[in-house]
Structure formats: C-alpha cells, structure tokens
C-alpha cells in the first residue's frame, strides 16, 4: 500500500508537470558534455531508486526536466545508452536470482520479477514516464526502440534467454499442462501470467512464446492424445470413446480460454481434433461391434448425435457417417423390395418401406439436426431402392396399398390418422421414378372403386386427388374429376329413369354411364345378353338417348354385377354374380346341361374371361354348377350341369370371382404406360422444335429431359423418338450438320 501511495503521488505530479512552465529553468546557452554527464548521473541514480522501489521520494517534474534538457541539447545518445546500461545492470542481478531459484519456485519467481509488485514492467512504466520526451523525439528520429519496449526486450535477452532459463521454463510449463490433463490441480493464474510474459516480452510478435512454449505444447498434445486414444479405443466401445473425447475437447477449450494465448486456440483445436476425431473417424464409423451400424440398429439417437456434433468440427469426416447411413438404408430397402414375402402382400410391402423411411427420417431429425446433406442423402438412398425394380413394382404396390386402404383399411380411423396415411402414400410417391406407372394403376383402381363401392362418403377419395393434384398438376386430376362427375350424373339419371317408368318391367337395373376418355380402357366386345336383360338395356338406352342426342352407349358387360334369384331343391337363393356369370346362369333356364363349347358359342363371351367366370361357378367351394370332369383343366367337351343340390346358410350369396393372372411378368413397364411415354416424348420434341425451328442435338435432348418429370427418360429412348419423327417427316437433319435438326411445318 506504500507502493500504491507512491504511485498515486507520482501520477499526480506527472499531470502537474505536463505543459505548464512555472518554475522551469531553461538554459538556452548549450550544454557541455561535462554538465550533461552530471545530469545523467542524477537521473541514473533516480532510476536505480525506482528499480529498488524507492520511488516515493522522487520528484517527477525534475526528472522529466532533466531528461528533456539532455535530449534538447543533443545528448540523446548519452541518455539512451545510459538507460539501456542501467536497465541491463539491474536485469543481470535479476537473472542471477532467477537462475539460482529451484524449479518448484521458478515460475513464481520469474513472474514476480516480471509483473509482480516490484516487477520489471512497472519499473519500465515509470522510467518511460520520465523519458517521454526522448521517446517522442530522439527515439523517433534515430529510429530507436522506445524505452518501454526496449526494457521488455532486455528482459527477454538478459533474463529469459540467459542461461538455461528458457529450457527450464518450457519443461515446467509443459509439465503443468500434463498434470492438468491427468486430472491434477495446477495454478492456472500463474500459468496465465507466465505465458503472457512470454508473449509480451517479444513486443511485436509471439516468436518467443512460440519457440519457448507453443511449438512443444502442440507436439506434446499430439503425443498425449495419440497415446490416449489408441489405448482407450482398443478397450472401449465407440459410444464410450465419443463420450470421452467430448470431455477432452471441452477441457482443451477451457484450457485455451483460461490461460493460453489467443493465437494458440485454433492451432491447439486443430491438433486435438486431428488426434481425437480425424484420425479415427472412419474407424469409429465402421467399427463392426459398436460403430454406426450398431447405433442405427439399436436406435442410439444420443450417441449418433454426439458423433454428429463432434464430427461437425471436422466437416469432411461427416461423409463417413453419411456413407454408412446411405448404405444401410439401401441395403435394408433392397432387402424389403426383393423379399418374396413382401412382394405378395402390397400392404406389408408399403408398410415396411414406410417404417424404414420413418426410422431414418427420425435419425436425420433428432441425431443429425436435419442437416441438409444428410436429408439429401437419405432421399437419394430411398429413391435408389424404391426404383431398383425395372417393372416399377413399387409403383404398383403403392397403388394396391392405397386401394386396400380406401376400400376398408381406413374404417375406424380418425380423421387425423387418415390424413397421415394419405400423406405417407404421397411421401413415397415422391420417391418413385416411374410416377406415371403409379398414376396408371391408381386410375384403374379408382375406377373400380367408384363403380363397385357404395361409399356415400367419398371425402377421402377427393382429398387424395387434391394431394395428387398438388404433386402432379391439374392435368392429371382433371379426368379423375370427370369420373366423379359421371357417377353423380348417373345417380341423378337413375332417379329420373325410375320416376318416368310407368310400368314395372321384370328386371330392375342400376346404370352408370361412363364418359370414354375419363375412364380407363373400355371393352368393346359384346356378349349375348339374355332376352330379359337385353330388353331392360334397350329401354334405358332409349331413355338416355331422349336426354342426350348424339351420344352412343356401349354396354360394358365385362364389368357390373347381377342378382339372380335361383331355385334349388332346398329353396330359393339370391346369388350375387358378375354380369358374365349372369349370362351363363340364365342359359340354365332352358336346359340343365351344356358343354363348354356350347356355352362359348351361346354366350359369345371372350374365352379368357369365360374360363374364369365359369370355373368360379363350378368351384368346389360353391358348386352352383357341376363340372364334369371335376378338375381345374378345361376342355371343350367338359360339361356343366345346374346343381339342384346347392345349398348355403345365407339367402343372399356373393359368388367370388377367381383372380385373373397378372399380365405383366416381363421386366417391363405396363404396355399402356410404355405407349404413353412414347407419345409424351414425341409430343415434347415436336413442341420444342416447332418453337425453336432449328435446334442442335444436345439442346434438344436436354430440353426433353427437362420437361419430363413423370418418369426417368433415357437418352436412347429420346433418340429413337427423334428418328421416328424424322421418318415421319416432322423434323429433318441439317444437310451439312447431322447434329442439327429442323422443324418441318
């Protein structure tokens, strides 16, 4: 506190002396060397007093004046060199003391000598105050180091760099850090002060700090962590290793922030990350027992998140995690898509795909913080396995799944659950490459549902359509809306029809009129309807014609159902059958037995359809007709007899129809879709060429690809279409350049 008091006095006297001239004795007549040396001697003594902490007695303005005088009379050299000398002398004594100090006290001692209460820095501050004028004029002129920094540099030269002090410092400092890493306590403040000293003592840069400390810090850090990592990894799981290095990294951050120089932070970080993360990143991810695959399969979200956070410090290591995830998704997905069990059950198939997606979506959200690149990689992996199958089977399955859900699967679900289901379907739809195949199946399934289901509430159908509209554009859904409209109008027509029927003809009918073009492919084949049915059909036709002239109706006998009241020995039954089956059964009003050949001729039903409709009636489980011989194989001579012994517990019996064998067995997309694709590409080519008139090959190819989103279009495919159009003279090649096309109007 005496010290503090002296300092205050000193400061006050300084401010008093600046500028004012009272009591100032200026000798203008030049200053002899002798006189100068005397002044210097006094000054020198004063400096020594300061060095000995006896500054309280000194008078600032006198000292300032003296130094001012010396400089003014061109005795700057004397002054400067003298100061240098006296500082050096003092520091030599300090140096001896420091060198004599034992290691345990060395840090403390040297820091005290540097920045302690009577430390060198403080001394030099005071000395600088006195010699301010010299600094501003002489030093600047002669380009000499200003007093304060000159003093610091001398400390460097005579104390730190003298003897083996710097080596000892190095060892002690690194030893402290090692201790701390080994979880012992050290004096952090002392370390901080010591390291600041090393930085400040070189004034303009951190070279001393680097040479004495930092270089070796980085080296020993690397060695330390290299050793520790190897040991730890060989005996612990990945998960535990990650926890450990997370702690270590935090420790090092703390160390850097607390006592290391700022310039060391990035360098240290780099070394630590290199040794703990970068070196082992791949290994950690690919570890067979506790690596990423294990974590994914066991839902270890926190561990994956930790890994993600740590690896994010060295961003390029993230690609290992991504690679692992992508491969796992693709492998899992490929297994789903190729599993024969799944291929038989659309619902199971779609469910598994959805589960896979949900699982990894969750990882991306929770473990990987919705990172953009992870999201992208997941999407690509899902797309990859969903589109592996060249038949576009997933597209078909998705539609079958949706069909099943629409029919019955969604009964009892809340509105939210239904909405979620539809959204799930849409999410998978987005991944499909062959979107047009899905659309094709969807339309077919939707048409069948509209015609056979009695659902008054078509709300969820309409919602699905609006979702598809958002994905595909209104072009796709406009025809679907037409289908709905047809149903509505038909219902209205039926009401009108029934009302205007005056007499009660035998057959009761429900007619739905479908606009060609809205509905999937129609059947033009006609079969021989029984008299009663034909009469009813004609009547309706007349009614319809009266309301809509100019339209032609074609009965779609391959669809539709009929209810027949059939008489058996045990009573009457109401059989619900397909139209074709009705046609077949009506024959038995005239005779009891027919051969297959006869039925074929009498009904005129296309043979392929006749087979399965007929065999369904003769099926062992519900023998409405008896087949002879009673085997599945069907020949023209086989006979079918009306089974009078038929019985059922129910009055109203629905006769199921055998499934038609699916047509697409080859590795191709359904033919209708393939045809559509050809037309589409040709349409685009013509459209582009019509606008551009002349276009080169590559530009045309890329334009077509740009405009085709519904399916993946291959260059060969486009080329073939171009050639077809050349052949049909829509476009031609340029005479000189084969790679340029011209539009032919």
């Amino acid at each position: 506190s005496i010290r503090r008091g002296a300092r205050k006095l000193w400061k006050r006297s300084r401010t008093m002396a600046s500028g004012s001239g009272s009591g100032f004795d200026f000798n203008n007549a030049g200053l002899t060397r002798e006189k100068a040396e005397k002044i210097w001697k006094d000054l020198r003594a004063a400096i020594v007093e300061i060095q000995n902490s006896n500054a309280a007695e000194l008078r600032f303005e006198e000292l300032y004046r003296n130094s001012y005088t010396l400089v003014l009379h061109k005795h700057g050299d004397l002054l400067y060199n003298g100061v240098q000398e006296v500082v050096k002398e003092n520091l030599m004594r300090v140096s001896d003391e420091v060198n004599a100090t034992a290691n345990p006290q060395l840090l403390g001692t040297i820091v005290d000598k540097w920045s302690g209460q009577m430390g060198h820095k403080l001394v030099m501050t005071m000395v600088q105050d006195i010699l301010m004028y010299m600094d501003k004029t002489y030093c600047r002129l002669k380009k000499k180091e200003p007093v304060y920094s000159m003093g610091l540099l001398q400390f460097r030269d005579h104390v730190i760099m003298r003897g083996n002090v710097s080596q000892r410092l190095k060892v002690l400092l690194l030893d402290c850090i090692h201790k701390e890493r080994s979880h012992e306590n050290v004096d952090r403040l002392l370390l901080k002060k010591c390291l600041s000293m090393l930085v400040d003592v070189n004034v303009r840069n951190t070279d001393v700090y680097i040479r004495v400390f930092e270089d070796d810090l980085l080296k020993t850090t690397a060695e330390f962590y290299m050793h520790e990592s190897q040991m730890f990894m060989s005996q612990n799981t990945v998960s535990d290793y990650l926890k450990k290095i997370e702690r270590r990294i935090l420790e090092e951050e703390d160390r850097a922030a607390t006592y290391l120089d700022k310039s060391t932070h990035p360098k240290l970080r780099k070394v630590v990350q290199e040794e703990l993360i970068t070196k082992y990143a791949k290994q950690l991810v690919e570890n067979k027992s506790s690596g990423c695959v294990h974590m994914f399969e066991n839902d270890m979200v926190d561990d994956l998140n930790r890994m993600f956070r740590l690896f994010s410090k060295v961003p390029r290591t993230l690609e290992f995690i991504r690679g692992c995830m992508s491969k796992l998704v693709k492998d899992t997905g490929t297994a789903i898509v190729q599993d024969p069990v799944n291929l038989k059950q659309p619902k199971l198939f779609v469910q598994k795909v959805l589960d896979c997606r949900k699982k990894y979506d969750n990882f991306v959200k929770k473990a990987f913080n919705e990172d953009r690149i992870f999201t992208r990689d997941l999407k690509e992996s899902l797309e990859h396995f969903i589109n592996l199958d060249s038949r576009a089977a997933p597209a078909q399955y998705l539609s079958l799944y949706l069909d099943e859900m629409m029919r019955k699967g969604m009964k009892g679900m809340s509105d939210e659950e239904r909405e979620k289901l539809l959204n799930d379907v849409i999410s998978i739809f987005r991944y499909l490459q062959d979107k047009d195949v899905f659309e094709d199946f969807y339309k077919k399934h939707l048409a069948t549902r509209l015609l056979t289901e009695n659902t008054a509430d078509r709300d969820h159908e309409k919602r699905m359509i609006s979702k598809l509209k958002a994905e595909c554009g209104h072009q796709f859904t406009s025809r679907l809306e037409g289908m709905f409209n047809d149903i509505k109008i038909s219902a209205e027509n039926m009401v009108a029809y029934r009302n205007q029927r005056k007499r009660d003809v035998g057959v009761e009918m429900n007619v739905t009129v479908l606009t060609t073009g809205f509905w999937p492919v129609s059947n033009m084949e006609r079969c021989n309807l029984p008299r009663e049915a034909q009469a009813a059909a004609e009547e309706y036709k007349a009614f319809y014609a009266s309301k809509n002239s100019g339209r032609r109706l074609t009965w779609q006998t391959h669809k539709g159902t009929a209810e027949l009241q059939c008489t058996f020995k045990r009573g009457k039954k109401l059989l619900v059958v397909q139209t074709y089956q009705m046609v077949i059964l009506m024959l038995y009003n005239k005779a009891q037995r027919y051969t297959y050949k006869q039925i074929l001729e009498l009904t005129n039903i296309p043979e392929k359809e006749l087979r399965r409709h007929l065999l369904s009636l003769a099926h062992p489980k519900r023998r409405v007709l008896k087949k002879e011989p009673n085997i599945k194989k069907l020949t023209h001579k086989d006979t079918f007899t009306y089974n009078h012994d038929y019985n059922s517990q129910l009055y109203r019996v629905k006769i199921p129809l055998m499934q038609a064998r699916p047509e697409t067995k080859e590795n191709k997309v359904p033919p209708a879709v393939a045809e559509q694709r050809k037309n589409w590409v040709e349409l685009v080519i013509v459209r582009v060429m019509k606008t551009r008139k002349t276009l080169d090959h590559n530009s045309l190819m890329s334009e077509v690809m740009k405009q085709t989103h519904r399916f993946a279009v291959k260059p060969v495919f486009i080329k073939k279409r171009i050639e077809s159009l050349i052949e049909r003279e829509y476009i031609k090649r340029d005479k000189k350049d084969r790679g340029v096309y011209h539009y032919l109007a």
Partner: protein
Amino acid sequence: EEEEEEEEDIDEEDEVLEDNLGEFLKDIHLDPDGVESFAFAYSIKHEHAGPISRQHFISGLREQDVDSWESLLTWAKRLRIQLKEPKMYRALYIWMFDYIKEANRKTIAKEYAEHLWSVMLPAVFPLYPKWTEFLDTKYESTVVKRDLWNCLYDFAIEIKDDLTNYDRHSGAWPVVIDEFYDFCAHSDANNNNQQTQEHQQQ
C-alpha cells in the same frame, strides 16, 4: 450408225431389257454389275429401278449431249472419272435409296440394302466387313430406313478405323450406328482377351 443399229434391234420393244443393257454397258466400257451401272442410271435420270424405256434411254443420253458413238464413249469415260470424286460418289449413294425404294413405301428391304452396300461401300468403308457381320448377327429389322442409309455413308467417310473419333454421347448418330459401335468395341475386347489367352497358353 451403230447407235441406229441398236435402235433397230430393239425396235419392237419399248423397254431396254436387262441383258441388252448389260451388253450395252460393256460395249461402252462400263461395269454392268458395279457402281458404274448405277451411275449410268443416275446420269440419265432413270429414277427408279426397273426397265428403262426406249424413249427415256434416248432422251436421257441426248440431254447429256450424246449424239454419236464417239461422244458416247467419251461420255462414258468421263463418267468413270467423275465417279472418283467424293462428292459425286456420295450423291450417287444418297440417290440410290430412292432408286431402289418402292413408290408407296418409306423404307427399303434389308436384302436390297445389303446388295447396294456391297456395291458401294467396300471402296470407301474400311469397316465394311464388320458392318456385314453386324447386319447378320445384330440387325434384326427387315427394313432399312432412309436416315440410317444416309448417315451410314457419313460414318464410313468420317470415322476412323479404330473408332476413336466417334462421339457416342452427343454425335447425334442413329441408334443403329451406336449399336454398331458397341458391337465393334465389344468384339475388339473379346479379341484382345482371346489374344492374351492365346499368348498365355503359349
């Protein structure tokens, strides 16, 4: 006079029949089975394969300023020389498609194309043997389209024997020619394998 004699010989018939034409061509030193016979038809603008009418024969020659036996021989000699010019050769090749094509069709039968190719291509198409192999094994269609016909010639002229300057990606070549390229590349690879195998066996 000799020309008039010829006119008398075929006085009864309006058509210049194959045999007579063949003899005629030989007399003026044109190859009746080769390129030169087609060049003859081309020059007198006999646009479609078939018998030449007498009228056409005479008027066609007359338009070429041929009015005597000497001028005929000179003209024929000039024709043989002209055929050596790439431009003329190409024009002849391109023209031949329509010559052989039936009027109501857009394509020509594969076997006709093969025959014409055998006449026209060996002189200018080093890979012609490979092309015939390709036609026998990989080319499944029974017809040849005009675009392929035309482009094949350019391929023959422009592309090197080792196919190193063939741009499969953006060359805008017809798909069949891409397939021919693949066919050559594939069989080269096989040959290399075979050679290394044989070498190893040695």
